């Protein structure tokens, strides 16, 4: 890092030069065959990488290593005994994160700060003095302003000769000169005294000064004049407007049109392609596509996980189903869409709604205010408006069913539309006013109830409209996006609502109208929390299943459950798709219905009604998926059997819970022919399941006939659905026998007779279908065994292959560690060798020094001794 920083520190040019030199040196070295070591390959292996290690420059790398050691280890070694360290305390000297520029900036800033602190502790107004090369920029500006800076400096710095002469005693020259000039002027006058001389000098200098001043002014004037003249001429010289003019005129320079446009184009955002406004057809198409997608999803779920079956199930043509459905759906969707935009009658409707809301807004003004005060944290800003919008939407959705049903009937006859529309408007108004009243009466915020009791107390005693409003407000006040725990609260709300509906349904006279309305918030909640809703409904189903189970254990059979169970089943069908191959809620519901149909014998007409209700629902569950329900056929056969006069031997077989000769076996037999003639088909009341309200003979007969008609209609639907099944004849054989031979249809009205004839005709038609012997599905031929070698990708040679990813990773890591370890050991060894070398050389040096010194000492000693000996000899000689 330090190295790189150092490199950065160098001016780029120098670095480049150094690089060039290095490059050059390297190429030189490369060319030198004695420097290059080549790892010879004995043979080539395909696919092996022989990267950078085939050619080496040992000399270069050795010198590099040596240099590095000298820089690091050697320094360390040399400094080993030293305690004091040289510290560069300049700011950011060792901070590698800072670029040199930044470092400089910071240092400068710090310095400035230090200076500023000292000066400006009490000096608030003083500006910072800007300098350039240590000189105040302000001063510089001032100097620039004065043209006669030279003279000024001259005046100040270099004194005139006379002045210096007079001040400093003067040179003889000056005085002489003076004397000469004086002599010229005033020879006649007596020589002046020294005082006079000085006064004269002063006057003179003053005069000179004045002159200079006036001269300066003059020159200034002249320059100015020159400038103005120049300006006048300038226009003529070149076709440019004078500078001063330009300044005044174009303080904001007016760019060229072209430039401007180019700029503009350059900076202008690229135009984003926007979505075209969609026409209605397209919107409708989109909606249709969405539904198609959902439908496709549903079909996929219906078929279950295994798609291989689709090949086999020829009779359910997937395309067919889809087409039919979409056709159906298409109309509906178009209509519902039109209701928002185009359709004329509904347009009127819409306007009306608008008017109404406008009218009501005034009335509700105070209410809104209140709400804004009250709701506070619920919804910011336009909560009141939103409420209104929601309200109108709600109204719309309230009307929806009407609209839908009417939309269906619109196609045939449009004459009656107007009157109908009027009626509807009236109804709407009434309802709306009711709803508004409800809204204004109720508080605007509701805490989500924590227990079922509190929920019950919230709803009880209120009309259905108010209950709906309350539910809606609870939902809104506790929207999951508003607070943390709201999701759980609303999930609980679903459970409470379901319980409430259960309670309503299990009353003696069930409030089905209220349930009908309450289903809508239930659906909305379910859309928000599918999992919680699913669990709730499952638990409800579980409860009823347990009740049945208990009864079966106790008595061996069960009674048909109350309306609430049927309502649960119905709600399941409303909330969840019933055609799925497996669904966490729907599948248990189907099993429950199967239990109801197989374990609950019929004892009374009420049981018949309940059973038929279950049958209707069961058939409805499979109306899309066309699944086969054996229990349903059995049950319908059993119910029809109740309408057959008792006979000794039957040529069809009844399945439990029905018995051929039970005590209720002629339950649906209608005795009185007159009753039959007066019968008209009308829907069965659901409340009949709890207990028949009809008491007279006639009414009961009619009820029986309605049951039979319903049953026959269900049979007709079954025949339609199961027509394509391979064993259709066997499935419907008992019913066919019963219908054709035993049912006293001749006594029934024409409507039922037609129905029966229709069924028999359809059965006959489907019976003609040939039986195709079963054959296994064609399976993919098992591929023959091949003897080509198995090819495996070999990614790296010399590595163990067969193990898994994790093992390989681990081995790689171990290998790497080993290599690194070896490298480190080698480095340490080299370092030690280097150190040893350095130490050796030091010792050698020291030894050499010592030897030299010893030698010197010996030298001096020997000379000393020599001298001494010589002296001694001399003495001896002298003596």
């Amino acid at each position: 890092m330090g190295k790189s920083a150092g490199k950065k520190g160098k001016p780029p040019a120098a670095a480049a030069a150094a690089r060039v030199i290095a490059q050059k040196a390297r190429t030189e070295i490369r060319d030198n065959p004695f420097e290059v070591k080549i790892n010879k390959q004995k043979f080539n292996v395909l696919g092996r990488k022989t990267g950078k290690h085939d050619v080496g420059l040992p000399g270069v790398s050795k010198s590099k290593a040596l240099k590095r050691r000298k820089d690091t280890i050697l320094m360390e070694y040399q400094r080993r005994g030293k305690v004091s360290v040289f510290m560069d305390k300049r700011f950011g000297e060792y901070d590698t994160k800072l670029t040199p520029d930044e470092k400089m900036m910071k240092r400068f800033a710090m310095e400035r700060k230090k200076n500023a602190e000292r000066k400006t502790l009490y000096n608030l107004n003083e500006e910072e003095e800007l300098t350039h090369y240590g000189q105040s920029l302000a001063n510089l500006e001032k100097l620039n302003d004065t043209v006669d800076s030279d003279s000024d400096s001259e005046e100040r710095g270099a004194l005139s000769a006379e002045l210096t002469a007079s001040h400093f005693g003067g040179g003889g020259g000056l005085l002489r000169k003076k004397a000469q000039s004086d002599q010229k002027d005033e020879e006649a006058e007596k020589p002046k005294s020294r005082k006079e001389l000085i006064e004269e000098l002063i006057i003179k200098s003053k005069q000179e000064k004045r002159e200079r001043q006036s001269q300066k002014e003059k020159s200034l004037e002249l320059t100015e004049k020159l400038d103005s003249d120049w300006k006048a001429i300038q226009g003529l010289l070149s076709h440019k407007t004078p500078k001063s003019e330009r300044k005044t005129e174009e303080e904001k320079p007016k760019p060229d049109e072209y430039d401007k446009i180019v700029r503009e184009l350059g900076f202008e955002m690229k135009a984003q392609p926007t979505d075209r406004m969609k026409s209605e057809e397209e919107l409708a198409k989109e909606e249709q596509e969405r539904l198609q997608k959902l439908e496709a999803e549903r079909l996929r779920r219906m078929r279950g996980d295994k798609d291989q079956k689709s090949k086999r199930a020829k009779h359910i043509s997937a395309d067919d189903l889809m087409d039919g459905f979409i056709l159906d759906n298409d109309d509906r969707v178009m209509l519902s869409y039109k209701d928002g935009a185009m359709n004329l009658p509904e347009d009127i409707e819409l306007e009306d709604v608008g008017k109404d809301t406008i009218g009501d807004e005034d009335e509700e003004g105070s209410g809104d205010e209140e709400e804004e005060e009250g709701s506070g944290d619920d919804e910011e800003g336009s909560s009141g408006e939103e409420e209104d919008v929601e309200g109108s939407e709600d109204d719309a959705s309230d009307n929806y069913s009407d609209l839908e049903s009417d939309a269906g009937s619109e196609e045939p006859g449009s004459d009656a539309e107007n009157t109908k529309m009027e009626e509807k408007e009236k109804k709407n108004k009434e309802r709306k006013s009711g709803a508004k009243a409800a809204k204004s009466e109720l508080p605007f915020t509701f805490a989500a109830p924590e227990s079922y009791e509190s929920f019950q107390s919230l709803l009880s005693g209120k009309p259905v409209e108010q209950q709906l409003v309350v539910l809606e407000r609870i939902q809104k006040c506790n929207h999951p996006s508003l607070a943390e725990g709201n999701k759980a609260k609303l999930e609980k709300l679903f459970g409470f609502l379901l319980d409430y509906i259960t309670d309503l349904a299990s009353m003696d006279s069930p409030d089905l109208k209220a349930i009908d309305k309450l289903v809508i918030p239930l659906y909305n909640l379910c859309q928000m929390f599918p999992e919680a809703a699913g669990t709730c409904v499952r638990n409800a189903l579980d409860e009823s299943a347990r009740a049945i189970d208990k009864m079966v254990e106790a008595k061996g059979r069960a009674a048909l459950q109350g309306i609430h169970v049927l309502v649960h089943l119905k709600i399941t069908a409303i909330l969840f798709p019933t055609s799925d191959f497996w669904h966490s809620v729907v599948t248990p519901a189907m099993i429950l219905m199967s239990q109801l149909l197989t374990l609950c014998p019929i004892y009374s007409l009420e049981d018949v009604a309940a059973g038929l209700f279950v049958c209707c629902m069961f058939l409805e569950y499979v109306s899309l998926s066309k699944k086969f329900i054996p229990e349903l056929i059995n049950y319908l056969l059993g119910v029809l059997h109740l309408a057959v006069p008792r006979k000794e031997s039957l040529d069809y077989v009844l399945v439990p819970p029905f018995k051929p000769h039970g005590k209720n076996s002629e339950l649906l037999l209608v005795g009185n022919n007159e009753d039959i003639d007066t019968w008209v088909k009308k829907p069965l009341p659901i409340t009949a399941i709890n207990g028949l309200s009809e008491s007279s003979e006639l009414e009961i007969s009619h009820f029986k006939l309605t049951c039979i008609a319903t049953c026959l209609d269900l049979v007709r639907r079954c025949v339609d659905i199961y027509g394509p099944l391979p064993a259709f004849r066997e499935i419907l054989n008992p019913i066919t026998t019963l219908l054709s031979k035993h049912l006293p249809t001749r006594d029934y009205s024409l409507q039922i007779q037609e129905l029966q004839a229709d069924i028999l005709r359809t059965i006959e038609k489907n019976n003609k279908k040939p039986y195709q012997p079963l054959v296994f599905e064609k399976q993919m031929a098992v591929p023959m065994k091949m003897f080509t070698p198995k090819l495996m990708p070999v990614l790296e040679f010399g590595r163990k292959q067969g193990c898994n990813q994790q093992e390989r990773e681990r081995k790689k890591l171990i290998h790497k560690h080993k290599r690194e370890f070896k490298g480190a050991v080698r480095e340490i060894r080299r370092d030690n060798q280097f150190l040893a070398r350095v130490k050796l050389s030091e010792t050698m040096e020291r030894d050499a020094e010592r030897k030299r010194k010893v030698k010197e000492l010996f030298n001096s000693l020997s000379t000393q001794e020599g001298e001494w000996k010589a002296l001694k000899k001399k003495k001896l000689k002298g003596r």
Partner: protein
Amino acid sequence: MAARKAKRVSSSFAKQSDAERHDLDSKLAAVLGSRTNANAVFDILEHLESKKEEVVQAAIRTTSKLFEVFLEKRELYIGDLPAEDDSLPDTCSAEDKYKMWMRHRYNSCVTCLLNLLQHSSFSVQELALCTLMKFIQLEGKFPLENSEWKESYRFPIELLKFVIDNLLQEETDSTLLITRFQEYLEYDDVRYYTMTATNDCIARVQQKTKQVLPPVFQTNVFCLLSSINMPVEQSSLENFLVTKNANHEDWKPTKLKEHKRVFERVWMSFLKHQLSVSLYKKVLLILHESILPHMSKPTLMIDFLTAAYDVGGAISLLALNGLFILIHQHNLEYPDFYKKLYSLLEPSIFHVKYRARFFHLANLFLSSTHLPIYLVAAFAKRLARLTLTAPPQVLLMIIPFICNLIRRHPACRALIHRPNTGDLATDPYIMEEQDPAKSQALESSLWELEVLQQHYHGDVVRAANVISRALSAQESDISGLLEISSSELFDKEMKKKFKSVPLEYEPVRGLLGLKSDITAEHFAF
């Protein structure tokens, strides 16, 4: 006022019964204390016939104590007892006279107790029964007969016989008391003599009523017989109410063989008679488990079982089990057995209580690989036809069952795989044909299973999908599926984990009136 009165009455009653109890206690002490007070026994016995339940109970307890002591002290006359009215020979000492008199009192007490077995209160009945059994035990220990008689006769058979006769009432249902009696049946000797006594009792009643046994009596007998828990090994015969003496080699209750013989005899004599349907079922239910293994000659049951098998319906189903044991272990040859079995296959078979048992046995019967192909095919086809009316829990069991049949008999593969043949106008199989050989099942295909591939329950569809490709060689195990009920199926669904819940995308408008709402067409609020 009335309440207070009632209270007073009840308190006075309590006082009264307390007083009587004290009276009984004091009399008991007096009688036991000295022979001079012997006449107080009459007073005690009188209380046995009291109207008050508590008094009766107290009296039973007192008599029990009293005669226990007498029996232990041998103060009752031993040997043949002359009638009370007979004048006694002079040779009798006063001691003997007293003992005789006391023995008469004992006998009348026993009669009283036997009558109390029909008392309205169960606790009294129970107490009387316990006292009687206690007497039996003590009589065994301190016999009232002459000791020169055989050891085996030490057991007071007569007394037990009376008890059994009183237990097996002809008019009243005494199953409750019989269940109480069951605990004495744990004693091997009691069990043995009970069986012989029952046998005698049946014979007696039969003679009396001329061949037809009253149903209540039958129920009582069945209750008694079914509560007999037969020993399996000779070595387990060690539990006796009457402690045996050393010399008991010849004593019948110690031999398992004798037990078995008596057991067999009593059952045979019981089953000889016409039984009601529910009793028939009950007998058949326990037949294979607790009757057949304990008979010395199980083949004696053949007639009974074949008769039951021919009855049809649920009784036939139940008879299958016994028949299976006879066929399997005792080499019974039953002509037309499979034909009968075939005729049992009716739609109601899936709804009866004994479904699991039947299919378990049917699986066993059809597991033989030596069955003719036509038979297996007929069974498979008939079961398949029945699936068209079956609930899902049955389908889950029956589809693997059919597949197993085809696996065992590869020639039946034609039922699910018949390439290179043209379409048929009708199904060749004749459902109404009783003889599997003539049903032409082999020419048919299992289209019914193909229909079930469209069943509404996913698991059924999965099971039925098996037939669209070659079956694996491995048989699937159906033992776990035999007993599955619809509630279990429901629970299984409820236990399934689910990740997401797909939703209906069609917006709701109310309870009724969704598109394709069939309910809305026929029902209204």
